């Protein structure tokens, strides 16, 4: 089916930069996806409710503030509590190597650090959709 992939691009946490998130949003759009962009300072609860209403295939979050170990798993857990099991959750931002295994364990399927090309993100999404 030629349906566009829908992606929620969200910025949890308190840091005030969304340049990275915007770059990713544009790259996904250019790859033919529908990107729902929710802007800065979203709580995990807001992200999950928006993901449900928008029925997205992917939740892509970016954090620069360092709160990723708390916020990323929180989103995954809330999605599970709501019974959502067909959404791919990915994260990006300045994330130290040693935090990666824990985040993947928690259900973040891939973490993209600043050097990653947007093409890799697009490819990852296309190859890892859950529905």
């Amino acid at each position, binding site marked *: 089916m030629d*349906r566009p992939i829908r992606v929620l691009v969200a910025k949890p946490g308190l840091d005030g930069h969304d340049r990275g998130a915007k770059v990713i949003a544009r790259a996904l759009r250019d790859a033919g996806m529908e990107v729902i962009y929710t802007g800065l300072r979203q709580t995990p609860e807001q992200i999950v409710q928006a993901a449900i*209403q928008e029925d997205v295939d992917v939740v892509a979050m970016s954090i620069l503030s360092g709160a990723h170990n708390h916020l990323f798993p929180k989103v995954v857990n809330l999605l599970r509590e709501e019974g959502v099991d067909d959404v791919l959750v990915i994260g990006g931002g300045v994330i130290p190597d040693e935090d990666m295994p824990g985040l993947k364990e928690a259900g973040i399927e891939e973490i993209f650090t600043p050097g990653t090309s947007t093409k890799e993100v697009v490819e990852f999404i296309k190859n890892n959709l859950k529905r």
Partner: protein
Amino acid sequence: MNLGERLLKGDRRACARLITMLENNDDQAINILKDLYKHSGNAYVIGITGAPGSGKSTLTDKIAKEFRKKGKKVGILAIDPTSPFTGGAILGDRIRMNDLTLDKNVFIRSMGTRGSLGGMSRATWGAVKVLDIFGMDYIFIETVGVGQSEVDIVKIADTVLMVMVPNLGDDIQAIKAGIMEIADVFAINKSDLDGADRTKLEIEMNLDLSDQKEYRPPVVKVSARQSENIGELVDKLMEHRKYLEDTGKIVERRKKNIRLEIMKLAEEEFMRLIMNKALGENLLEDLVNNVVLKEMDPYTAKDRLIELIKE
């Protein structure tokens, strides 16, 4: 429980999934709507339209909050343009409505136009039914920022709110182009900026020239950003609803729109039939080549296409 039953019970995920299926032309969703259509009809539909950047989303957020204060359940469909080149879209209206995301009596859905002109997407008509059956009292449709011809909103909304802004040099152009005719209520947003009075005057002057008798669209200055005068604007929207209901015009209006919808659905199906056959059997390509070579004229080519469907 199937999706339809879940929708009737107010299941948000079922609501969301059905809209997705409609967007993707899934016949299963249409069948569900066939079954549930009798449950629709409670919702009142308000279209919110206006130039790009005029503040439609910010204003929708504020108006929705006002309706929430009245205890009404609110559905919002926010439409943004799909790129004709990539099929992708950035749907950004939601940024202005984040406060509403956690309200269980609000459901917001962003939609790309997916090739439709007219300021909405093809699935918008179905999505309105889904939100209606889901139990929403009011459904707001934010169209893409409109130019001149994107006025389909009038074919779906009970009330059309036209959002204007001060000092937009081409306001008068828009007025001339016929956008005036579809507005039931005007909001002059960004009235915190200079020039709102003049814009109001210009609109009023244009209304003086047109010939509505019983109902004259009100013009309300508001500031969505500063939450100014939103209550008055909502009163005007409600007055328009009351006018339609008291005069029975609501029935006429909905009947007219249902007629348009049926014709539109038939037209789409017809095109799909032609294209499937024509492309499937390579006929279109052959016809085009014949016309290019002047072995056939385009009128005869069209006749061939039509014959194919009649078979």
